[in-house]
């Protein structure tokens, strides 16, 4: 078996969708409803993305609105003719040049429990979601410090508490949601530090009240958090985390509206877990590796692919939707997925262009109604420049390579003028996380130091593999006799 080397046997479908969260799953379901052949990849074992993540490993799950929505989505996928490749890690995405416009333009290679899986398609929909942003502070690499999204996964998917005594810190709706979840689960929450102040939330009340269902949910979370014994500290952030081998103590202190540390009384708590998140950043590595054009949007989580009204990027046939194309939340992600599915139906001629236009206009109106709420939440989660500026010189910024801010500043002062040059000089972004957890911070540090816009610093050049994979997995099982040997060139 030499499936890796034999390109003739790679299956061809109409559409490949990467990411089975709300956006990707909806795109796949809509496209397949009109008979398009669709292959849906996700590295997690089940669909749902992070927001509707399925319970795993024997945990029956907790019955709530997210669980119901996720179960509904998974049931629809089960009943559809989508070819699913869950538990598969896509490591390569290639654009294929062909004269025939109907020829497959994209090839995707993944590894999964059963070995290699490859596919080719005319259209590629990227719905790869977001990562958590944690702006560095001393001690953030200690075991016991983890993201807000990580705590959500532990609570909702694995059925385990992130710690016995915890402090929560960060910003945005996820902070409130995790606080309510932990309090509800009976975990001792010592303190909740919000970068925002009550006024920042109140100013967004008109937009929030425009979505009564979501507003009611957020209100219930807030009430539960307020009723707990947790110390509420608005306008505060983590000053440092301390501990010998694991986290033992968290110190919180006041910050200004931009997250900049301010003089004032500090608060220390002895805890075994610190749950912290400062918003979300886009996972746009697929559109980056395919050299689509991107622009920087502080509101929507950083670098986002440029798309037209159909969510098509500057690479023909490549679509980008969901939080990976700009952090806007589940409602807009689901709608964008449905819209792309309709566009693809029309592109292959499964429905008339006129019908698709009417259907997409209806979705556009729904999206317009969802946008004020989404923008209000994005505003609370956007990167705060002052917070990044407050990072102390000895603080580790790149976790993989243990690089401090002082080392990054020194490389910038030496000659690094772009993010790729910084990588060459320091190895920043070269570790196994591939710059996912330091990129947003490092780019901002460089932009500030060089007094350049973020566009002038750029993104790291996209390179395969998209995720670390072992060579053994990629090679698979093969016999040397199976390797096709090309005929020698004539003498």
């Amino acid at each position, binding site marked *: 078996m030499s499936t890796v080397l034999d390109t003739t046997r790679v299956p061809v479908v109409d559409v490949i969708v990467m990411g089975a969260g709300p956006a990707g799953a909806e795109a796949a379901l809509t496209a397949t409803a009109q008979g398009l052949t669709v292959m849906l990849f996700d590295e997690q074992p089940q669909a749902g993305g992070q927001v509707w993540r399925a319970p795993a490993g024997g945990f029956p799950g907790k019955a709530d609105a997210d669980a119901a929505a996720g179960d509904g989505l998974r049931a629809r996928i089960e009943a559809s003719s989508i070819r699913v490749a869950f538990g598969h890690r896509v490591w390569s995405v290639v654009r294929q040049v062909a004269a025939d416009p109907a020829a497959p333009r994209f090839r995707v290679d993944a590894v999964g429990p059963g070995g290699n899986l490859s596919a080719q398609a005319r259209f590629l929909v990227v719905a790869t979601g977001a990562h958590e942003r944690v702006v560095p502070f001393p001690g953030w690499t200690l075991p016991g410090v983890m993201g807000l999204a990580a705590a959500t996964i532990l609570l909702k998917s*694995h059925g385990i508490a992130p710690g016995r005594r915890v402090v929560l810190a960060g910003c945005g709706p996820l902070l409130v949601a995790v606080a309510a979840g932990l309090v509800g689960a009976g975990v001792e929450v010592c303190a909740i530090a919000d970068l925002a102040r009550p006024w920042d939330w109140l100013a967004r009340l008109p937009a929030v009240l425009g979505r009564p269902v979501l507003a009611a949910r957020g209100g219930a979370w807030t009430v539960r958090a307020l009723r707990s014994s947790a110390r509420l500290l608005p306008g505060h952030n983590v000053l440092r985390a301390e501990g010998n081998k694991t986290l033992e103590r968290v110190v919180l202190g006041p910050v200004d509206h931009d997250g900049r540390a301010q003089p004032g009384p500090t608060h220390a708590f002895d805890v075994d877990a610190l749950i912290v998140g400062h918003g979300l950043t886009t996972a746009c590595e697929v559109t980056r590796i395919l050299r689509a054009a991107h622009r920087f949007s502080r509101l929507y989580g950083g670098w986002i692919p440029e798309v037209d009204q159909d969510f098509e990027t500057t690479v023909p046939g490549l679509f980008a939707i969901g939080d990976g194309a700009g952090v806007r939340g589940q409602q807009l992600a689901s709608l964008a997925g449905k819209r792309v599915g309709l566009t693809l139906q029309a592109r292959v001629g499964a429905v008339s262009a006129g019908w698709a236009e009417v259907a997409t206009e209806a979705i556009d109106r729904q999206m317009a109604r969802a946008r004020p709420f989404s923008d209000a939440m994005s505003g609370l989660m956007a990167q705060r420049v002052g917070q990044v500026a407050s990072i102390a010189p000895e603080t580790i910024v790149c976790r*993989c390579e243990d690089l401090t801010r002082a080392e990054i500043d020194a490389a910038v002062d030496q000659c690094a003028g772009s993010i790729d040059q910084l990588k060459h000089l320091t190895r920043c972004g070269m570790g196994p996380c591939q710059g996912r957890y330091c990129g947003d911070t490092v780019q901002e540090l460089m932009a500030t130091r060089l007094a350049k816009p973020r566009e002038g610093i750029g993104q790291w050049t996209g390179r395969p593999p998209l995720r670390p994979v072992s060579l053994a997995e990629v090679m698979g099982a093969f016999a040397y006799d199976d390797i096709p040997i090309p005929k020698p060139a004539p003498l």
Partner: protein
Amino acid sequence: MTVPLFFVPSGTVRVTVDGQECSLPEGMMLAPALMSLGYRSLRESPRAGAPRGAFCLMGACQECVIHVDGTLRQACMTPVQEDMQIELRGPR
């Protein structure tokens, strides 16, 4: 410090962690399963040798990469199976 589970696992299996025998809930991902026994530090960072543990739990940050049966695996994406030989020594 151990961390409480919110459910009773249907079954546990024997594994070894750095040579020590222990039992973990079968099918649970390794990172939360190890947390439940109090294993917080999963490896040391290659440059500073500082302790590291699970951070993102969604397969992106690579902080929970450990040796399972001699192969590097992400503890947050690898389900517990019988007789797993787990080593918390990090990539070398």
